[in-house]
């Protein structure tokens, strides 16, 4: 899957915005949004938030977790744990990316946030690589991947599935042969 498609899925997540206009509810196919009152924060899907922002109709409100202290703690927790820790949002990377791209002024300490989120990402990806290595060496046939986010899964998807398919094929050459040895006729 292309990362832009993961972003597409992330755009369904709700984020808070403060509109500078007043409008009744909008009845979208995917659900109702609004009513909008100028100055009052309300949750909207991320794709709509970005759209409103681009038209200068709102300000973003940083999600609770998009905060220096929260993220520093999260980073420490991730570094201390052998396992993947639960992330505050299943799409933390995409939400950070979009909010910071379009609304740097709305997010306090945007640069530090960006760096911290990237640090957490890097820690998790490094962890992902070593667990993949352990997994492949163990020869196990399945693994539980709780708390991995879709964007993280997606960066290793092709590589990991290919490697495991290859291994499965190597493991099954012996067993496949006994069932199949007479089927090849010329």
């Amino acid at each position, binding site marked *: *899957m292309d990362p832009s498609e993961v972003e*597409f*899925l992330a*755009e369904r997540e709700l984020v808070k915005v403060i509109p500078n*206009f007043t*409008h009744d509810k*909008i*009845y*979208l*196919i*995917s*659900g*109702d949004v609004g009513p909008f009152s100028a100055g009052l924060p309300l949750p909207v899907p991320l*794709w*709509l938030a970005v*759209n409103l922002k681009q*038209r200068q*109709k709102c300000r973003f409100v940083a999600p609770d977790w998009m905060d220096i202290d929260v993220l520093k703690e999260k980073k420490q927790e991730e570094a201390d744990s052998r396992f993947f820790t639960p992330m505050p949002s299943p799409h933390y990377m995409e939400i950070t990316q979009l909010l910071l791209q379009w609304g740097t002024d709305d997010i306090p300490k945007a640069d530090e946030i960006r760096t911290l989120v990237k640090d957490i990402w890097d820690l998790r990806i490094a962890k992902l690589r070593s667990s993949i290595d352990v997994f492949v060496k163990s020869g196990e*046939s*399945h*693994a*539980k*991947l*709780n*708390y*991995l986010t*879709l964007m993280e*899964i997606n960066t290793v*998807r092709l590589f*990991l*599935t290919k490697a*495991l*398919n290859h291994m*499965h*094929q190597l493991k*099954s050459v*012996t*067993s496949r042969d006994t069932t199949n040895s007479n089927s090849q006729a010329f």
Partner: protein
Amino acid sequence: MSTEDVGDDLLETVDDEEEEEAMTAPEVLHKLEEAWLNEKFSPDLLPVKSNLVECMLDQIVAMENNISTLKKGDFRISVHRMEIDRIRYVISSYLRHRLAKIESLTTHVLQEEEKRRDSENVLMSPAELEFAKGYCNSVMTHLTNTALDHMPLKAATPNAKEIAVLPNLDSYVFLKVNENTENVLVEEETVDAREEIMDFEKGDQHIMRYKPIASLVESGGVSLI
């Protein structure tokens, strides 16, 4: 007329089982998005979700009618348009993935459809089935004209079973568990390993081979991610 009438509609859809379920538009959309991802990641062709696709297309048409009644410059127009574009993307990507699979697994999907002929749960839509048959014929004609006609008769009769491209059901997939499921057979017993059984807990994510969980994808017990 305002756009309100569309969003509030409750939709009657007949589920695969006999029960009739009323789903709201957001629920249908959610199901369609799930079907799209399942289709994207499954190595095999899944039963078509025509009702979901048609329902969303109807919604789009109704919404477009409503948009046309809005005054030019209404703030809602671009919002609705954007949402329609997003849904259209999901629908076309879903259908394209299906066509791509039908092209690469042609004989296999035609055989599978044959097996399901008497059941309600068809594999392909009528249009897809027609495409599959046409494509199958075109490929055979092409192979015959370019190669088989120029070969000795004995070598020129391909064994349909041998040349059929089968889906690799042993491919690894990522999945998320939607419903608690006990005793999932992850690995069958082999000469040098015992069988492996696992319990799936709602919300868990796994990576494993497709074959053992194929039926759970169809029933909705797990989603591919």
